């Protein structure tokens, strides 16, 4: 199951933001990862930055999929600002454990993205766990 919705706000490069929903299943992560890399490529990120986006999104999705309630969905929103790609990923989880509890994965994320933030909020019967990654094009990424 997967679903893509592009929104109307066009970016200067002709790329738009997009929302993607897939099953919260490890099997679906490569799909999102390729999607993210493709967007970064069309945003004209440099080739290293494209790889970083691919890896960061992979890590964030893998992290959340592990926490997700069975048979639920993984939501991934791509938002394009000037020279920045913002990716918000969230799932519904039973446990309120923040993603950063997985120190190794979190370490990888923070090294790959320009900034990473997490959020856990209580929903009716569980928790919504989300990760927001911000990556900038070449120059800024060449830290």
């Amino acid at each position, binding site marked *: 199951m997967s679903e893509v919705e592009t929104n109307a706000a066009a970016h200067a490069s002709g790329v738009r933001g997009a929302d993607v929903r897939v099953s919260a299943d*490890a099997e679906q992560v490569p799909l999102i990862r*390729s999607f993210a890399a493709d967007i970064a*490529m069309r945003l004209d990120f440099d*080739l290293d930055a494209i790889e970083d986006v691919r890896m960061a999104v992979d890590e964030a999705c893998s992290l959340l999929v592990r926490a997700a309630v069975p048979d639920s969905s993984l939501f991934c929103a791509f938002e394009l600002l000037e020279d920045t790609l913002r990716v918000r990923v969230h799932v519904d989880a039973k446990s309120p454990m923040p993603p950063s509890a997985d120190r*190794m994965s979190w370490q*990888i994320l923070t*090294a790959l993205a320009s900034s990473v933030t997490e959020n856990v909020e209580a929903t009716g019967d569980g928790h919504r766990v989300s990760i927001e990654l911000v990556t900038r094009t070449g120059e800024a990424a060449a830290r």
Partner: protein
Amino acid sequence: MTESHATQREDARFDKLARLPDGDPRRVALRTELVEAYMDLARNLARKFDRRGDQLEDLVQVATIGLIKSIDRFEPAKGNFYGFAIPTIMGELRRHFRDTGWAVRVPRQLKELHVTVAAGRAELTQQLGRAPKPSELADHLGLTREQVYETLMAGASKEGSSLDARLAEPNGDRFGYEDDELNQVDNRRALQPLLAELTEREQKIILLRFVRGMSQADIARRVGVSQMQVSRLLTKILERLRAGLGEDSMVR
């Protein structure tokens, strides 16, 4: 391993193998013993090719075939086994890349573009001091952006991933096996807070080196320092991590 001792002993076994007649059952046993004895050589050589994106296990298999060929063809009278085996195994690995470089059938034109784009990428990286953008590649090579996109996408599927690949994902394992890394758990746990104390640049270097397995030269290019500096930084960081762990708790 004490080099001279091992070499002498190995040499004796090769002599013995050469003297055994073809159908002798002891031949099979000795050959197996030799293959096992030299597996580390095959593994080490395979690792040298690992960053081309192949699965290390696949490369080790190819290198092992090279090793078996070396053992079968080696003539002890003609010199040292390493001198014979290393080029043989490297040859086997190179042939593997030449023949099976593309796991997916890609139109010839795209393959050629792939070579062009790879060369352009190297040139521009040199010129710009960073990785080029697709638009820069297109301008530099006189291609349309769409052509560059297609080529980059094709490059990404140069190797297909196994249908079992997802079984390696945390949620997907279906077959139980003892993780070889299990005895590293304590070290890793202890390492995490130490890693968190590193500067952003140090973390990036460690990540590129040990998670992505990049060479020092590639890291130097990414981080924007010389290879010498990367080497020095790595040594310094590792020393600090070792000191933090306490030397005796390090397995290696």
